[in-house]
């Protein structure tokens, strides 16, 4: 409290302190209430690490085993907490290693601040050791970035960075700080950024758009809601649920929207898109009003655009004006923050139930259950399926766990069969499809929400892309549960090779190491399961573990994920086999 008062007095009097740029960077993070950061030291960022050493009681720096891991951990942190994740790296290769995570955060709208060290400003452009143009390189994949060459500019740059990262449609920002700016002194004071001229984080809702949307919704005979991560990012889950329940409209979700409404909710009709559920895909092309909320009509959701919901009037609730009409022509655009717009529209919506229409979803679910789901989660044939593993984890975690997935078949299966009870429980790389995302993201998620059970689920391919982060788990004592669904294949690519390349399995078979031994090499408890009868006990042991636990489950080698909307096909051409 005392420090708080002193701090307030300082702000009131505009008292400044003479400190080094490097210390200013750490002080800015403290001012932004950052308690955990992920990174990797190196030459150009060493002054900052020296300050982190001094401030280690205030900021916990997590040494990942690769800078890519730092960004994914920061993403996992952000996705489960709704706060800005922070990653830090040195210049050159340290900085370029951040790019995959930054690009992932950009396309999945994850708030993240990346800080990179840079060579001395007099060396810029001289091809100095570990010099790279990270501002240039990161430009297309950041919401905003800048380079700081003077210590005095550090507080304002970082304040702006945090503001931009978290406001409006969130995204990654990068601040590149030269070593001389870190060594230089400045008169430090910190003011949080609350606006940037030229930047409108939340656009105004056009007059009449709510009324027009409400009219369409109220008059619709077969309305269909499709929602995305916007509901979660706006923390509009309550408003969203209220709208769904009052209007009685069936609702389907994008992969990043998963968990905003519990899976068990009667109006939750499942996942959209390529490996989504049968009913929501089929009926997209039969609804009369399509109500999109906080989603961006990604091609994996829409399939062939020319044959996507052409019969329907489209309402788009969206915070980013550039998304309106980008892929799908909208009849009514409701711009703004979903929490506010949904709140505002609710009183205008008539109570309804749409029973016959809803029944169509249920009927199609039955078909999907018989053809696909039953065999996935209650298989009778030999060989474990990914679906039954997910089901077991789900039962034993009572749907309370946060599921962090990688990319591929296991990801689709996990999203399809996890019964989410809590929001912010599905952490995955959606837009970029970054293999290797899962393990480090799970570390970040667990550290941001230590009270939650965090289960990382990966395939044998993606797992090995960032497997070194087991070292971070060990060093940080992060109690992440790590599951690898091993089919000794890059399964999703193999599935495509089977379906579309006449089974020419080019470079998709993996000759894998002893995963249990590797985990044990990092002193992580580990187990391998190959038989159905061992599964439940192994999952129970994993769930009961107070520490990190590694579970390898050998699943059928050539299992396929269905349903499937083949690439370039319409959503109504979804295949069940």
């Amino acid at each position, binding site marked *: 409290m005392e420090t708080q008062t002193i701090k307030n007095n300082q702000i009131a009097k505009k008292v400044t302190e003479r400190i080094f740029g490097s210390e200013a960077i750490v002080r800015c993070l403290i001012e932004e209430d950052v308690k955990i950061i992920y990174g990797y030291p190196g030459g150009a960022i060493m002054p900052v690490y020296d300050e982190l050493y001094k401030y280690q009681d205030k900021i916990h720096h997590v040494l990942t085993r690769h800078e890519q891991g730092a960004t994914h951990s920061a993403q996992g942190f952000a996705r489960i907490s709704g706060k800005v994740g922070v990653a830090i790296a040195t210049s050159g290769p340290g900085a370029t290693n951040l790019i995959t995570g930054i690009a992932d955060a950009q396309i999945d709208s994850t708030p993240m601040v990346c800080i990179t060290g840079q060579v001395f400003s007099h060396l810029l452009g001289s091809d100095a050791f570990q010099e790279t143009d990270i*501002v*240039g390189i990161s*430009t*297309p994949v950041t*919401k*905003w*970035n*800048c*380079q700081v060459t003077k210590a005095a500019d550090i507080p304002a740059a970082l304040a702006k960075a945090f503001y*931009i990262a978290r406001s409006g449609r969130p995204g990654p920002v990068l601040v590149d700080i030269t070593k001389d700016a870190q060594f230089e002194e400045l008169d430090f004071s910190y003011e949080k950024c609350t*606006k*940037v*001229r*030229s*930047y*409108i984080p939340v656009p105004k809702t056009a007059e009449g758009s709510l009324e027009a949307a409400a009219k369409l919704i109220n008059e619709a005979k077969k309305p269909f809601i499709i929602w995305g991560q916007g509901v979660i990012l706006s923390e509009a889950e309550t408003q969203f649920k209220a709208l769904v329940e009052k209007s009685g409209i069936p609702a389907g979700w994008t992969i990043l929207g998963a968990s905003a409404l519990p899976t068990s909710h009667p109006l939750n009709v499942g996942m959209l898109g390529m490996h989504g559920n049968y009913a929501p895909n089929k009926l997209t092309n039969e609804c009369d009003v399509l109500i999109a909320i906080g989603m961006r009509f990604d091609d994996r959701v829409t399939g062939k655009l020319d044959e996507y919901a052409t019969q329907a009037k489209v309402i788009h609730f969206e915070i*980013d*004006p*550039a*998304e*309106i*009409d*980008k892929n799908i022509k909208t009849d009514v655009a409701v711009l703004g923050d979903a929490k506010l717009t949904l709140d505002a529209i609710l009183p205008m919506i008539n109570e309804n139930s749409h029973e016959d229409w809803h029944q169509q979803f249920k009927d199609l679910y039955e078909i999907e259950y018989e053809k696909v789901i039953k065999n996935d989660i209650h298989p009778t044939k030999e060989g474990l399926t990914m679906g039954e593993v997910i089901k077991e984890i789900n039962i034993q975690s009572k749907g309370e766990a946060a599921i962090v997935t990688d990319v591929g078949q296991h990801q689709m299966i996990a999203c399809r069969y996890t019964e989410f009870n809590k929001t912010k429980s599905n952490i995955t790389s959606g837009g970029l499809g970054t293999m290797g995302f899962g393990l480090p993201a799970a570390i970040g998620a667990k550290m941001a929400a230590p009270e939650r059970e965090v289960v990382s689920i990966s395939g044998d391919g993606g797992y090995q892309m960032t497997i070194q982060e087991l070292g971070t788990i060990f060093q940080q004592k992060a109690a992440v549960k790590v599951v690898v669904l091993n089919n000794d294949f890059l399964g999703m690519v193999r599935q495509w090779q089977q379906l579309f390349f006449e089974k020419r399995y080019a470079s998709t078979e993996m000759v894998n190491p002893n995963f249990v031994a590797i985990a044990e090499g990092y002193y992580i408890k580990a187990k391998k399961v190959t038989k159905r009868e061992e599964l439940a006990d192994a999952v129970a042991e994993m769930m009961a573990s107070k520490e990190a636990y590694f579970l390898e489950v050998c699943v059928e080698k050539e299992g396929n994920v269905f349903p499937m909307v083949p690439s370039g096909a319409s959503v109504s051409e979804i295949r069940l086999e």
Partner: protein
Amino acid sequence: MSTERNLYTISVYTENNIGLLNRISAIFQRRHINIESLNISPSEIDGVAKFTIVVNMIEDNVKKIIGQIEKQVEVIKAYYHDDEATIYQISGLFKIKSELLFEERQIQNIIKESNARIVTVNKDFFVLEKSGKKAELVELHQKLSAFGIMQYTRSGRIAVTKEEMKISTLLETYHN
């Protein structure tokens, strides 16, 4: 909406920051769109820069590009207009051997007829400046080519719009 390609002038009002050119040009590059011409200059408002970008695109895509440009944090506003809605000019410089000016009578006629202006003359060369529409410059270039041109360069398009831009009003709303 027309699916025909057309020339559009995109006007972008921005903060004057390092890196913004890169950020804006990346939007075009990523979508494999060729920029016909690009000019950056101060605008009517102190501290606000103006990009004038000419593209040959279908209108629907120009609209999407405008959305992507405006999405950039340091962009204040972007507009697009067809040629009818703007008053635009480009400028060209021709460096020609001085002896031709005196020996080739026709050159003097060409200069007069085209309303070109002699910027400088010395014993070796003279420099001709011509502002106008692209077609006028192309025509002048063709005519002078017959005699030999030592150097030729043409600027990007600069344009003002017939409609009001209201950037000042917009900046005020940002302050609120």
